[in-house]
Structures are given as C-alpha cells and as structure tokens.
C-alpha cells in the first residue's frame, strides 16, 4: 500500500514509530496530486515547496519530541472558502480570484497548531452554492469512482481529494448537505457538526444561520481525530457554543446494544432509486443484528424542508453577498461611470449564474410585499421542522437514512435544471434547518459500482453517539476499506 492511501491514524502511527517522516508523507501525497489531479480537478491551489518546507519543520519538531498531536505531520487540504493567511482563497468565484486573506480562519489556525501540513485549497461550487461542483468559476471536479460523474457538492473538491488519496483529510463546509452529499457520492466519511460547535470565523459566509465547517475523512476514527482538533468555543464567532467539548475519540466503541435507531419513512420512500433504499435497509439489518433496536417512523414535514431551506439560505446569502461591491477587496469592473455603475458592473461580471439566481431569489423573498409570505413563512416552518426532530429524539438516540436520493449522476445531467438539483438535497437540508449534527459513511455500492452513503442524524451536541454507531457499523463491515481505483 502506498503512503497516500493510508488513513490519518495509520499515517500518524507510522510517524510516531519513526517509520516514515512527515516530508516523505507530504511528498507521497504531492506526487499523487501530480499524477491524478489533472484528471480529477480537486485542487484550485497546490502548495508544493511550501508544503514540503512546512513538513520539514514539523518533522524537526517531531524529532525533538515537541509534538503530541495525532495530526502532526498529516497532509491535509481545505475547501477554498476557508481563509488561509497569505494563501489565495477564492470561493471558486471570479469575484475572489485574487483574494489573499490577511488572516487565518480559526479552523486553519487550529489545524496549524496541531502541526498538520497544508497541501492546498480545494474546488467547490462558487460561494458553496450547488450540489455538484459544476458551479466553480475554475473547473469541474470529477468523481474518482467514475470520471464522467460529479463528485457532489458543494465540497466536491474536498470529497474527491480524500477519495483519491490526494489529502490525508480535508475540511469542507455544509449549509444544506455540502459535506454529507459529496461524502456519499465519493465514498468517504463526512460530518456536519452541531451548529456552533466549529467556529465560523474566517469561513466565507453563505447562509450564516446554517453554515458549519466539518471534516471529510477516510474512516470514522479519522473523523473523531479531526473533530477533536477543530471544535471548541471561539470568542471570534458570536454563535460559537460555549459548552464542554468531549474527547470524540472516546466515542469509538464497537457496541450499539440497546441503542434506539429510527428510520424516517419519508427518507426511504424512494421509488427513484431502489438500490439506495436497499442499502439503507441492509444497514438497519446489520445494526439490528448487533443489538440495536431499529424501527421506521414518520417525519411528516420532510417534503417542506427543501422549499424552506432555499428561502432561508437564499435570503441570508443575498444579504451576506452584498459585501462584494468592488471596494475593499475582490474583483472590480474595469470600466464604470459612477459609484452605482461600479457596484452594478462589478457584481454582474464577478458572480456566476447560480450565485445570481440565489441572490435574486433571496432578495425577492426579503423584498417589501413578499417578506411575510416567503421569508417569515419559511422561518415558521423552520420551527415546525425543529420540533419534529425534537419529538423524534425523545424516542430515538440516532436517526438513519440515505444522504442523497441517488448515487453520483453524470456531469451536465442537472446543471441546467436548478430545481431538480435543489430537490436532491431533500435528506440533508432539514439537518441544517434544525442545527443538528449528522454524519455520512459509506454503506454500499450500486450496480455501477458507485458508492452509496448512509446518513446518521443526532441530537444537538451529541456527535459522540453518531461516531459510536458509525464506528460500530464500520468495524463490522468492509465498505470503508474499498478505495476508488484511479
């Protein structure tokens, strides 16, 4: 096995036992990027020499016995909406094509403090708006399992990079499924933590009441290790949760006896893709055999989540993206007559079509005469959806279902059909609306040998139970060991 194929905990183990150096490891993953990223297109920016220099420094610290972190020397990459000081951060938009952040996001800083090695910045849908990574200003990212298919999105670069061994792990962001759905399409593990658990300081805002950063990893153990590094209260984010954070690696227990697990009927009532449904029901069988109580129940508001989500997220986006005016940073139109013309031309030339569509939708929903009908209504439905989950969690420890209605679809298949693309978010958006934690793990393959992802949804701040159930499933199955052949 090549070094780049290893999980983070395997890499960490070899580093600790002095079998390999951080430099060799970084070189192996960089070579892998050079060999395959031309075909996949997961990176917007690759840091070659800088990464090796950093690895050398980390190795010196390891040799002196100065580092303890299980992430020391681990090569990783960040979605390109996470600010990195002096490293270009584009949000995959023409608007930020030349943007060099003057500061680090809290998560970037936290990962540097753990002595990780940043390899580069990953492709995404422009401003994280999309579900296929086809909305990037730069390029389309391809799915490592089938290069004619999308990797999912918006964290498609992150999922594809981890799946193809081009990063030990990656961070993505999830506003309506943007970590969990690409994890599902690329056969990796992806977690959206509880709202407030990971600082959003330095994450370029899309929909602030739902955005959350999370890890994409090769297995559940890695997910717990990365979560330990990135969670925690941050005074720089006023929505950061000031709670006691557990050691997530303590949740890696191979036992689900007596756990109560619910499957929302509405999540498997999927005539369009019987293979996804079967994979989820097979998981239910496996968990039952391991001693869990699994039953179906109803989440009747499921079909209202997508419309509510697109109103709320677009409204927040239209407000958040008003900052791109061509004055303080980012793109500025070359020719203009006055200040208003500068704003109009800058924004019209700098934003891509999907971003414009969402800004218009959000502006519409917030505009005089429509505010109550759309925005307020969506926030009221948000209350109902939140209560629906609250009730479910009085009965169940964890909910399971698919992460997406289908496996990865063909590039171009949905690009011109925005509503159809939005409907693909049906199983993920409720989680963001309610601020819950959720985790996707690989749980099967369809007849095209494309990965199917299982989504586990938990109570607020109960990432540990999600990790425990996922870990138990993983320890008793082989899906996480099967890698994309590329």
């Amino acid at each position, binding site marked *: 096995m090549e070094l780049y194929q290893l999980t983070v905990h395997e890499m960490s183990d070899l580093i600790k036992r002095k079998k390999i150096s951080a430099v060799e490891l970084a070189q192996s993953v960089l070579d892998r990027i050079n060999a395959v990223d031309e075909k996949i297109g997961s990176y917007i920016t690759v840091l070659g020499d800088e990464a090796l220099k950093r690895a050398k420094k980390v190795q010196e610290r390891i040799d002196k016995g100065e580092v303890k972190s299980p992430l020391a020397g681990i090569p990783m990459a960040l979605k390109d909406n996470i600010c990195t000081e002096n490293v270009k951060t584009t949000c995959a938009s023409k608007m930020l094509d030349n943007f060099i952040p003057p500061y680090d996001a809290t998560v970037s800083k936290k990962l540097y403090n753990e002595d990780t090695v940043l390899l580069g910045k990953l492709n995404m849908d422009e401003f994280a708006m999309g579900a296929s990574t086809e909305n990037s200003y730069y390029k389309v990212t391809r799915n490592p399992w089938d290069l004619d298919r999308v990797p999912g999105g918006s964290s498609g670069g992150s999922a594809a990079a981890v799946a193809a061994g081009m990063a030990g792990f990656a961070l993505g962001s999830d506003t309506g499924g943007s970590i969990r759905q690409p994890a599902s399409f690329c056969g990796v593990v992806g977690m959206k933590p509880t709202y*407030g658990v990971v600082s959003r300081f330095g994450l370029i805002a899309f929909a602030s009441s739902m955005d959350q950063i999370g890890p994409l990893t090769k297995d559940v153990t890695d997910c717990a290790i990365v979560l330990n590094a990135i969670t925690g209260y941050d005074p720089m984010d006023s929505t950061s949760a000031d709670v006691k954070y557990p050691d997530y690696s303590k949740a890696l227990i191979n036992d689900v006896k007596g756990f109560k697990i619910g499957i929302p009927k509405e999540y498997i009532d999927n005539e369009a893709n019987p293979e996804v449904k079967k994979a989820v029901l097979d998981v239910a069988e496996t968990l039952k055999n391991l001693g869990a109580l699994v039953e179906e129940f109803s989440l009747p508001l499921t079909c209202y989540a997508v419309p509510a989500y697109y*109103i709320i997220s677009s409204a927040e986006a239209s407000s958040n993206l008003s900052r791109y005016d061509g004055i*303080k940073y980012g793109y500025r139109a070359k020719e203009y007559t006055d200040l208003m013309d500068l704003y109009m031309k800058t924004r019209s030339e700098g934003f891509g079509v999907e971003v414009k569509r969402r800004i218009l939708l959000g502006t*519409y929903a917030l505009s005089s005469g429509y505010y109550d009908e759309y925005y307020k209504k969506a926030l009221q439905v948000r209350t109902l959806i939140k209560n629906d989950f609250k009730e479910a969690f009085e009965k169940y420890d964890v909910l399971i279902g698919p992460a997406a209605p289908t496996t990865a679809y063909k590039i171009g298949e949905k690009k011109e059909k925005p509503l159809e693309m939005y409907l693909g978010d049906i199983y993920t958006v409720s989680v963001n609306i309610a*601020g819950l934690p959720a985790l996707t793990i690989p749980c099967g393959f369809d007849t095209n040998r494309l990965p199917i992802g299982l989504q586990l949804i938990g109570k607020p701040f109960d990432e540990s139970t999600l990790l425990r159930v996922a870990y138990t499933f993983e320890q008793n199955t082989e899906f996480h060991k099967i890698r994309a052949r590329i």
Partner: protein
Amino acid sequence: MKVTKETIEHVANLARLNLSEEEKEKLIHDMENIISYMDKLNELDTSEIIPTDHVIPIKNVFRDDEVLDSYPKSKMLMNAPEKEDGCFKVPKVVE
C-alpha cells in the same frame, strides 16, 4: 406565482445586478419554477407559530472594552482594487 420581467428587473436592481435580456428570459423561467415550488409551504398553517431565526439562543456577546491588537493598515488594504494614501479609492460620490 407568476414572475414578470418587471419583477425580475425590480429585484435585480435591489440586488445591484445588471442582467442581459437573455439572462432575464432564463431567470423568469427559473424563478417561476422555484417560487411555485416554494408556495408548497402554504399547505401548512403557521398562523400560531413563532418563527425561528436561529436554532440556538442568540444573545449579545459582551467583552470588556479594552485595547487589543488590530491588523496593520497595509494588510487591510492589500486586497483593495484601488487605493491611495492609505485609503480605499472610490469614484467621486459628492460634487
């Protein structure tokens, strides 16, 4: 919900976006589809329901009023499309 060209033009102006005729045509179609779908929410009676802006209780976060390190001016200006004498440069706005 019928989306007209006037609606699109009005909203685009509020959002400070110029749209070409071609873009307008496409957006009228897309927005009408999407907004009609959003009208599905009207199936739910929410007259008695309190809206949720934020899932977690949001309160003002206070801190002591003390002088902390700030970023140097040059760093804050490094991404400016145009700057002059340590300031962001914009077209003339007052006569």
